[in-house]
């Protein structure tokens, strides 16, 4: 059973469909990258996922049940902009948010202490939120999201304001949560983080789903017909099934003709006894794919 099922969800403001028949699933123990340009409908989709706003049509199901007030404790939500009380201490903040999710204050405090050790903020637990740096506040917000051990995590730009060390720490925490079987929706503009962490991707643009699938499938779908070959410098001989060959030094760039597979080109190189040191099918990065799709829809 998928952890999250979003089925033909629609949200309309005035005459405009801000989200239009969006559907996707997130499996348990998987991370879905929710991507899209600014104003594409990501935040509205997330708010419908959180039951903060109701869809005009369609349905959101969490662990097989229609999302309602009872399901809120199953979800941990990290908003894009920090939502913390400036004059509350770190510990009070965490205990307060923990109790909102159904924990007892003692239980919330015990777990908060454990998590603060994990993110190296134990020494700051009596400090007020306004005394913390942006990155520290971000870590506290993350702790408040995972404190009650939710089954589903919705993380909106979790890496904002983090230095490389803390960014690595947050990546580890996210990976661990996945390892524990949690379903995670990661909304971000950082495509390299999506490539690094996500199992699947859902791209939304102008309220509609425009790209969906596993990262491997998407890359395969957008893979081009160009090969990069590096060898000892010997140029390859005549190659069948290619439309062009450019050779410069040890690098050869081959454009395959329609119907030719990389395997067929590699077999010919082996037969010609070319000492291949690198053979790569040029695949676009997720960033390239994003720009291409968003550019087409612009």
């Amino acid at each position, binding site marked *: 059973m998928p952890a999250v099922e979003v089925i033909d969800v629609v949200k309309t403001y005035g005459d405009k469909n801000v989200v239009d028949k969006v559907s996707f699933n997130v499996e348990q123990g998987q991370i879905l990258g929710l991507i899209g340009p600014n104003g594409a409908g990501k935040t509205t989709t997330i708010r419908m996922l959180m039951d903060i*706003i109701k869809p005009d049509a369609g349905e959101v199901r969490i662990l097989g049940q229609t999302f309602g007030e009872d399901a809120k404790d199953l979800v941990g*939500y990290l908003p894009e902009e920090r*939502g913390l009380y400036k004059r509350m201490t770190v510990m009070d903040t965490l205990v307060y948010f923990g109790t909102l999710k159904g924990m007892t204050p003692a239980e919330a405090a015990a777990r908060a202490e454990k998590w603060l050790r994990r993110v190296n903020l134990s020494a700051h637990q009596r400090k007020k939120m306004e005394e913390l740096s942006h990155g520290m506040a971000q870590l506290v917000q993350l702790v408040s999201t995972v404190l009650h051990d939710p089954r589903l995590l919705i993380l909106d730009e979790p890496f904002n304001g983090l230095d490389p060390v803390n960014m690595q720490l947050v990546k580890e925490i996210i990976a661990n949560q996945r390892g524990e079987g949690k379903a995670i929706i990661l909304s971000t503009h950082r495509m390299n983080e999506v490539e690094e962490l996500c199992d699947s991707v859902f791209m939304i643009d102008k309220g509609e789903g425009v790209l969906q699938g596993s990262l491997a499938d998407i890359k395969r779908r957008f893979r081009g017909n160009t090969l990069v070959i590096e060898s000892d410098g010997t140029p390859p001989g005549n190659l069948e099934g290619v439309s062009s060959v450019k050779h410069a030094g040890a690098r050869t760039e081959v454009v395959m003709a329609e119907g030719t597979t990389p395997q067929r080109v590699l077999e010919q190189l082996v037969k010609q006894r070319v000492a291949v040191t690198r053979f790569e099918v040029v695949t676009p990065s997720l960033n390239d794919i994003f720009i291409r799709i968003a550019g087409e829809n612009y």
Partner: protein
Amino acid sequence: MLKRTSYILTTILLPLVALLAIVIYNLVQSISGAPTEVKIPKIGYVDQVGIFSAATNQPGAELIPYESADAAKADLINDTIKEYFIIPVDYVASGVLERFSLKTELEPGQGSSTAIEDFLIANLLKNAVSPDITARVQAPYTLNNTVLDESGNVAEGQGGFGAYILSYLFSLLLLMSIFTASGFLLQGLVEEKENRVMEVLLSSVSSRQLIAGKVLGLGAAGLVQIVIWLVSYKLLLPFASSSIGGLFSSLVFPPSIVILSLIYFILGYLLYGILMAGVGAIAPSAQTGQQMSTIFSLVAAIPFMLMVFIIENGDHALNIVLSLFPPTAPLTVMMRLGQGIPVWEIIASIALLVLAILGSLALAARIFRTFLLMYGKTPSFKDIVRSLRQA
């Protein structure tokens, strides 16, 4: 809210100010020794009839006879007497007196008038009737008033000063609670919108729970404040001066009136708290919120502005309308409780208030859901109506 400095200050400051006033008053009394003797004013008179010589020592003034108007005038100017009057020869036929004083006044003071009146009556009747009858003519009656209920038994609410004070006190407290609590509510909501805590809160609770929680929390804080004030009042009363302390300790608050006042206080607070929360959801800043909430504050204050009319015109149609209309019901009914109000009106107004609270909670929750996460923009009235229709 309980940790807010302004809340703590307001809660503690009122009893402290009362305590300080008592301490200063007692200190001044102890420094100045025994209370100074009350100076009885002297009123001169010139009797041209020749029958006014007795009863010159009246409780409110001492009457000093003068042979001539000039002598009286001289003493008035050198401040021996505060005023004088002439009883002309034809007084018994005309009833006209000539009064002279150095001050311009709207009308003669009550003390002077009573003293002159009693002095004249005592002298006019001294040879005709006994002193007892003269005293009765001067003060014909003391009214002991008893209100009966429809079955002829003594009614629980007997009106009077205590009932007026209770009505006034609870009305004032409700009005203060509406203004102060709504201020806190608006400020809190706008702050939570600005620092985005609202989004996190709504991921944990529903908008209806959020409004109910905020209104109940602030209501509880308001009640704590009132309880502290009432306890301080009880504790400070014995130390107050005998005149003020005596006045307040003589007040009797019938239990039924106290309970009904509390019910209306709570229902009224809930209604306005929910309405203010709705305003807080729409308002982009605390200042705009305060401006938008003025309309509710004005409606809440209508019965207060009509207080004298409401208290003096028990079953007037306007009173019934104001008692049944939920936004004005709490204050109006509180004001009428002391004078007696039909049971059906109380039941109907409570039922309508409860319905209005539930209705406004549902509407406010919808407004919350739509507009709470709309940052930096005030929705138009059309937007609000459309969103309520769509919801």
